[in-house]
Structures are given as structure tokens and as C-alpha cells.
């Protein structure tokens, strides 16, 4: 591992071929200058991706707030056709999933691949173009949605003539850059994050195109709808973020992942068995028994990868939770990892018939989904942004107070959201189950918890504004030169409280 002179090592790393190479790449580490060079190769698409993502975060938050307040004050903005609940609610979902999360996920993918493959990003112009085309598609889709043009399927609302083709093309462009970089790799062994990130792109393309084909009707339409919805979670949103956590969590803590083979089991288990899980969205509905059997089998098999990931993340950080106080990125990533385990186990629990008869069709589902897409996906992406942005801008985050405020507001807000609305959903469901109670009872039972959810929404919104403002401060005051200091100069978080 001790190599004299960085120049010689740089040549060795760059010029050696994969097979028949004298140097085993797994043993050779990059130095700081090389890491910085790799970061530079993807800098522009990553920055653009994060910028567009954060703008979407704010827009999606506003849409979510409006939707939430409408539960508490149903006549709020009631005469505005473009803001009726039935349009604002899917607009919020699409803005968050396809605007905020997906843009940020493109960015983290493009940042990770050069580092993991030890070669510069290939076709960065195409990657950048892809992010822009995708975003144009999402804007068109959401504006049309508010105007009443929708495909009518949850998670697939954006118009399949005017918006969806742009999304497919945009994602394909980013995916092409990712795979081209993979093909040009300078490593023999693929770190687990490479599997996760690379696989996500063909999976997204397949499910998105299939879900949007206008050829299904009746219960088959429902089957495809939820096949898509569940797999969008597991084969796109989950996979990119697991890839991110597997890379950054060990790196910041300074130990390799607890059990690398376990992480491989986790990936392959997911890849082989995940897609059959989607049926649980239709429990109780018109469903044949073989589907139930397959779904239960797939769900049980999924326990293996979920537990594998959970054990891995936990054992890597166990005994070192103190590290969270020194790195905001790590804090967000660790919480995200825990949330992934929690939401997956919660989901498996909810698939059990006895639980499902209470929770299905209630606000519990919404609370559950926010545990996943916020506490796991969004917090993971916050962690990624806190780690990556300073490295691209060349200076550290300006304000520890703003990071603290962001963390406390969204953390507290989301815990209130998930716990109170989840509880409210259970109460709603229990009342709905009792045929002697009128439907009104279920609505009244939920009302106080819809209000607490709105309160949580306000906290979270403030947190987002602070985060966005802070990111703007960082970018505006930053230099673009890349310093020679060792990497964790940026891992080191910012200014300590005075006194």
C-alpha cells in the first residue's frame, strides 16, 4: 500500500487495465488529488441535479402543505379548480418522487460512479442533458396535472404523451452515462454500491414504461399499477439510496462495512425476489390464491435482504454512535438506514391479513409511506448532499446552527407525522371495521391527527426553507478551487457553538 510519489501511483491507477494487470486494484487506494479529479468529472451534472432537486423540494413541500391544510379546512382554496385536493395531492407526490428525490438520486449516482469505478465520468454532457430533459418532463407533467390532465393511475399520473416520453429519455441519458462509465471501469471487483446504482436504471426504465402503457384495463390495470408503484419504491428509490448509504456510512465512520458478503446477499436477494412483492397493495381485493402464495413467499424471502442490510448498517456503526455528533451527513444517513429497516418490517407486518384489515384504506398507509419516502429516502439524500456539496464547492457549510435547525425541525416534524397520523389511521380503521358505527365515526376519529400532521408539515416546511437557504449560502460564497487537504477535512462538520 505504501507507494512513493503520487504521480507514479496516479499513472498506475489510470493506465493499468482490468484484466492481466500487475496491480490488484483492490489493494491500491486513490489519494485525495485523484478523488478530487474524479469528483470534478461529474461536478456539473451533480450540481445541476442537486439544484433542481432542492427547488422541487420547496415546491413539493408547498403542495403538500396545501393538501394537508385542506383536510383540516376543506373549503380552503375550495373554489380554485387548479388547487382542488384531488389534483394538489398527486402533484405533491409526483413533485417529491420524480422532482426532488429522482433529481437528487441522479446526482448522487453520477457522483458515486466515478469514485467507485476509479475512472472519470463518461459522457457527462449526456448525463447533464438527461437531468434537464427529465426535469422538463416533470414540470410539464405536474402543470398538466393541476390543469386536470392525468393518466389516472397513482404514481403514474403524468401525461403519457407529453410528459412521460421526456422522463424516459432523460433517465435513459443519465443511465447511459452511468453504464458507459461502468464499462470503462478501472477496478476488477465491483463494490456493492455499483451493483445497486447500475441496476436501478434498467429497472426504472422497464417498470416506468410498462406501468405507463395505456393497454390495460380492469383488474389487470390495477395489478400493473401496483406492480409499478411497489417496484418504484424497491427498485429505484430504495436501491440508489442503499448504494449511497453503503458507500458513505462506512467511509465517514472509517471502517469497512461489517460484513461485506452479507451486503451482497442483500443485493441479490432484492434483485431476484423483490418484484413479486407488489401484490400486497391489493389484499382483500379480487385476487387469486396463487398470487397470495407467491406474494407471501416473496415477502418472507425479502426479510432476508432487509435484515441483512439492517444488521450490516447497525454493526458498522455500533459502538460508534458518537460519530454522529461530528458529522451531520452521518447522522442523516444513519437515521435513514434505521428508517429503511423500520419501514420494511412495518410493511411486512402490514401485509399480514389481520393487520391489513385494520390499516388498509386508512391514513396509516400515508404515515407508513412517509416513513419510507421521507425518513429513509429524503433523509438519505440530505445526508448525501451534506457530504457531497462541500467537496464540489470547495468549502465547508457556513452555519452549524442552520444544520442543527434543519435536522431538529424535520426530524421532530417527521416523528410527529408518522406517529400521530399512523395512530390516527389505526383509529380510523378500527371504527370503519365496526358496522354498528356510522362512517362518520371514522372521519371524526382521524380529524385531530390530521391536524397534528398539518402542524408537523409546518415544522418540516420551515426546516426545508432553512436547508435550501443554507445550500444557497454555501454555493454563493464558495470558491471553485479544490483544496489539497485530506478528504475528511470536509467530513469534519462545521463551526462549533461558541462556549
Amino acid at each position, binding site marked *: 500500500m505504501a507507494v512513493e510519489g503520487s504521480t507514479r501511483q496516479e499513472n498506475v491507477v489510470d493506465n493499468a487495465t482490468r484484466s492481466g494487470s500487475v496491480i490488484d486494484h483492490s489493494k491500491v487506494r486513490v489519494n485525495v488529488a485523484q478523488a478530487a479529479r474524479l469528483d470534478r468529472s461529474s461536478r456539473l451534472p451533480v450540481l445541476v441535479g442537486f439544484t433542481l432537486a432542492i427547488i422541487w423540494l420547496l415546491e413539493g413541500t408547498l403542495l403538500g402543505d396545501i393538501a394537508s391544510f*385542506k*383536510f383540516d379546512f*376543506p*373549503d380552503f382554496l*375550495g*373554489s*380554485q*379548480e387548479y388547487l*382542488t*385536493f*384531488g*389534483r394538489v*395531492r*398527486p402533484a405533491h407526490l409526483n413533485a417529491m418522487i420524480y422532482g426532488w428525490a429522482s433529481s437528487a438520486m441522479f446526482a448522487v449516482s453520477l457522483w458515486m460512479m466515478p469514485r467507485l469505478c476509479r475512472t472519470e465520468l463518461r459522457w457527462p454532457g449526456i448525463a447533464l442533458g438527461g437531468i434537464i430533459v427529465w426535469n422538463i418532463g416533470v414540470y410539464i407533467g405536474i402543470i398538466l396535472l393541476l390543469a*386536470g390532465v*392525468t393518466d*389516472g*393511475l*397513482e404514481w403514474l399520473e403524468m401525461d403519457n404523451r407529453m410528459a412521460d416520453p421526456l422522463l424516459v429519455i432523460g433517465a435513459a441519458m443519465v443511465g447511459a452515462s452511468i453504464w458507459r462509465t461502468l464499462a470503462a471501469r478501472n477496478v476488477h471487483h465491483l463494490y456493492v454500491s455499483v451493483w445497486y446504482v447500475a441496476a436501478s436504471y434498467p429497472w426504472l426504465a422497464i417498470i416506468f414504461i410498462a406501468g405507463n402503457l395505456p393497454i*390495460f*384495463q*380492469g*383488474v389487470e*390495470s*390495477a395489478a400493473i*399499477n401496483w406492480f409499478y408503484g411497489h417496484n418504484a419504491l424497491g427498485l429505484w428509490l430504495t436501491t440508489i439510496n442503499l448504494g449511497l448509504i453503503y458507500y458513505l456510512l462506512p467511509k465517514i465512520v472509517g471502517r469497512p462495512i461489517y460484513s461485506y*458478503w452479507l451486503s*451482497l*446477499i442483500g443485493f*441479490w*436477494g432484492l434483485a*431476484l*425476489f423483490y418484484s413479486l412483492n407488489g401484490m400486497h397493495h*391489493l389484499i*382483500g*381485493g*379480487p*385476487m*387469486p*390464491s*396463487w398470487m*397470495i402464495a407467491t406474494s407471501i413467499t416473496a415477502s418472507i*424471502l425479502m426479510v432476508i435482504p432487509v435484515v441483512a442490510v439492517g444488521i450490516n448498517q447497525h454493526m458498522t456503526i455500533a459502538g460508534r454512535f458518537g460519530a454522529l455528533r461530528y458529522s451531520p451527513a452521518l447522522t442523516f444517513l444513519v437515521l435513514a438506514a434505521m428508517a429503511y429497516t423500520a419501514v420494511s418490517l412495518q410493511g411486512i407486518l402490514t401485509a399480514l*391479513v389481520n393487520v391489513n384489515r385494520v390499516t*388498509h*384504506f*386508512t*391514513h396509516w*398507509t*400515508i404515515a407508513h409511506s412517509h416513513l419510507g419516502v421521507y425518513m429513509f429516502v429524503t433523509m438519505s439524500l440530505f445526508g448525501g448532499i451534506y457530504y457531497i456539496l462541500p467537496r464540489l464547492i470547495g468549502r465547508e457549510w457556513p452555519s452549524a446552527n442552520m444544520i442543527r435547525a434543519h435536522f431538529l425541525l424535520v426530524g421532530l416534524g417527521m416523528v410527529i407525522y408518522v406517529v400521530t397520523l399512523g395512530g390516527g389511521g389505526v383509529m380510523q380503521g378500527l371504527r*370503519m*371495521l365496526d*358496522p354498528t358505527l356510522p*362512517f*362518520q365515526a*371514522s*372521519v*371524526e376519529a*382521524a*380529524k385531530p391527527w390530521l391536524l397534528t400532521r398539518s402542524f408537523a408539515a409546518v415544522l418540516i416546511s420551515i426546516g426545508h426553507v432553512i436547508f435550501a437557504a443554507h445550500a444557497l449560502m454555501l454555493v454563493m460564497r464558495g470558491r471553485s478551487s479544490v483544496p489539497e487537504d485530506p478528504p475528511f477535512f470536509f467530513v469534519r462538520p462545521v463551526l462549533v457553538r461558541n462556549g
Partner: protein
Amino acid sequence: MTRAIILFLGAMATLLFALIILIILPNAMLSKVKAPPGLKPYTQEELLGRQVYIRNGCVYCHSQQVRDPTFTTDVARGWGSRPSVPADYVYDKPHLLGTMRTGPDLINVGVRLPDAQWHLLHLYQPRALVPWSIMPPYPFLFEHKETATPDETVLTIPEAFGPKSGVVVVTDEAKALVAYLLALKRDYPVNAQAPVQPEGETGEGEGANK
């Protein structure tokens, strides 16, 4: 150790996919849902109304499926005389099964609430008829004008909920939506061949009207 486990995973997956290709897929290719005799296709107006339903996102608060009485209490609650079967949805493109019951299930609302006037007023302002409701109002499905022309229908609104002056006229959109809602009736009997039942169903008349 890793190789062994990976090989095992691969073997399991191969078995599972082989099962799917050799047994399940051929079975699937052989059967098809037929339209039940009791279900008529949607009329032009009803289809337009269905589009209004979709455009305004009604599916995000209302489901359209009656679940089995051995599983839960949808039937006891009066949402349907029997559980829904796949055949009930043959003309639905896209499906509107729904995943939330912020509001009641609607697959049989045409049976339960057959009065068009009730629906029109309820859409205009739900709280005029259901004080505890949190459903949004849809005034934009109606037209507020000074006076109505002879061929227009005026909506009768209780004073507390209507405009201060002028009248509220029903548009074609609103009429179409109500026509669609009234067409939501799935109470015709389905025969014993109605294919899909959840496991655990007893032997007697699968899905048949009792």
C-alpha cells in the same frame, strides 16, 4: 461461504422462475375474464363523467371495491350486497379501485344514493348535506350567473351555502359526473364460475348472491 449462499439464492430463483414459466404463465394464458350479463358498458355521458372523476382525483379519497365478508365488514356496512369480483371491472380503463377511504366506498353508490339532485348539491358543497364531511367542494363544476336561460338547470341550494345573488347552473360536466356515479352499481348476481376468491372461502356459492 458466500459462494455457497449465492449459489443457493440462484438456485431458488431459478426454481421460482421455472415454476412461473412452466405452470403459472400457461395457466394465465388460458383464462380470460368475461363481461357479466348484468353489467352494461358505460354510455358516452357516463364515460365523460368518469373522466371528470379521474381529472379531479376522486380516487385519492374514495375506493371502489367491496371486500369479502369473511375478511371484513364492507358488506355489513352496506357498501355492497356481495364482494367485488374481477368481472365487475371489465369496462374500467384505467381502474379506479382506490387505496384510501377518507370518504366511503363508491362502487355501489348508484344503488345506495340514486338521487341525482342529492349528488349535484353534494358536489357543489358537501357540507350542505353532510355537516361533518371533509370532502372538498366543487363549485367550478357549476356556473354562477345572474339568471339562467330556459334550457339550463338551476341547482337548488340551501340559503346558507348558496351565493348572495344570482343562480347556480348545472354544467354538462356536472351532469356527466353524476350520471357516472349513478351508473356505479355492481349488485347483479355473479355465477359460481366467478373465478377469483381469496383463500379460505367456504364451499358455498362463490360470490353468488344469497
